[in-house]
């Protein structure tokens, strides 16, 4: 903040607190002896010190009564005032990464990788961090296994025990959801379609189930009273199907 302030007002942070003798001179240089009761003025400075550095304004009578007046910052300097993403032509990357919703899980980034890759790596010791913390022994060359060495890989016949079959378990895919979406337009009740994706509304539906049962019962009663071919029940059945 102070840097901004000083830039705007033609001063830099390199200066010490006001009143100190080093104010009138470049930082890091010992101040020359100055008579007491004399205010350091830019006009009184030796010319070589006044010219030093790009920031300090040239000394002269014109600067009075101001001293330590600095040059204004160059206007074309690249600052946070400009949109840096646009400046570095990163709009495409920005739109690509932030424009669409990125799926949270690692399996959506590496869909062809077998196994449960969405679990934290620390659970089964497969984390990349552990590779950095405890780097494996490198430097040995890989050589193919000869006949004698391959005898060590003779396996027993039969399936693997249950605990070692994790590799073939794939994370559940959301194909079934797509199916539901395709079915929705055929649904005879359009007001039900948008609520399927909302879990809260789903819950509500389930909560409403007893009410619907009551309604069904009422309709059944009406059916019995008036006409047995009343279509009321058939209209409610797709709703229950859409819940499944």
């Amino acid at each position, binding site marked *: 903040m102070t840097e901004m302030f000083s830039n705007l007002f033609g001063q830099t942070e390199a200066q010490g607190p006001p009143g100190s003798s080093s104010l009138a001179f470049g930082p890091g240089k010992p101040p020359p002896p100055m008579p007491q009761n004399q205010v350091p003025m830019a006009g009184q400075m030796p010319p070589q010190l006044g010219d030093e550095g790009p920031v300090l304004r040239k000394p002269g009578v014109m600067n009075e009564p101001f001293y330590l007046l600095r040059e204004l910052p160059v206007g074309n300097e690249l600052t946070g005032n400009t949109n840096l993403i646009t400046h570095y032509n990163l709009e495409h990357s920005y739109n690509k*990464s932030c424009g669409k919703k990125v799926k949270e899980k690692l399996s959506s*980034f590496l869909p062809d990788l077998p196994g449960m890759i969405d679990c934290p790596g620390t659970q089964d010791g497969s984390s990349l961090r552990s590779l950095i913390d405890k780097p494996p022994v490198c430097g040995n060359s890989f050589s193919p296994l000869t006949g004698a060495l391959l005898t060590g890989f*003779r396996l027993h016949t039969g399936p693997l025990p249950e605990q070692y079959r994790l590799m073939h378990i794939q994370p559940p895919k959301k194909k079934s959801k797509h199916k539901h979406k395709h079915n929705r337009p055929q649904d005879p009740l359009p007001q039900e379609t948008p609520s399927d994706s909302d879990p809260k509304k789903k819950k509500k539906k389930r909560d409403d189930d007893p009410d619907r049962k009551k309604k069904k019962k009422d309709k059944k009663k009406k059916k019995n009273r008036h006409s047995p071919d009343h279509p009321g029940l058939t209209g409610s059945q797709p709703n229950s199907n859409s819940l499944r």
Partner: protein
Amino acid sequence: MAEKFDNLEEHLEKFEENIRQLGIIVSDFQPSSQAVLNQKLNFMISGLQDIEKCRQQLHEINVPLEVFEYIDQGRNPQLYTKECLERALARNEQVKGKIDTMTKFKSLLISELSKVFPEEMSKYKAIRSEDAPS
């Protein structure tokens, strides 16, 4: 640059596919599968050799450590890129806001100082008008 990555990606995919097939063979092992298993094991070794060769081409590549954290947590590493860009934009906007505020503050301060120190400020403005780019 992209060729290097494509090459590594291709080798990794081949290696991963070979491992997957190995897993299938091993999951329900039959005596007749021993020859195939031996072949797959040697494929695995040649795959590792190929990946090892790719290492030399990718010495200059720097990967942020935070990406590893994302992967270790089972999260999509594209989220890291997304969050980085969003953070950069937010910070950019913050700095722009500060600059705008300071600019407003400057003009306000000048106007107020002009009321209290009119002579000095007229001199100051005269000096600054000289500095101002035409």
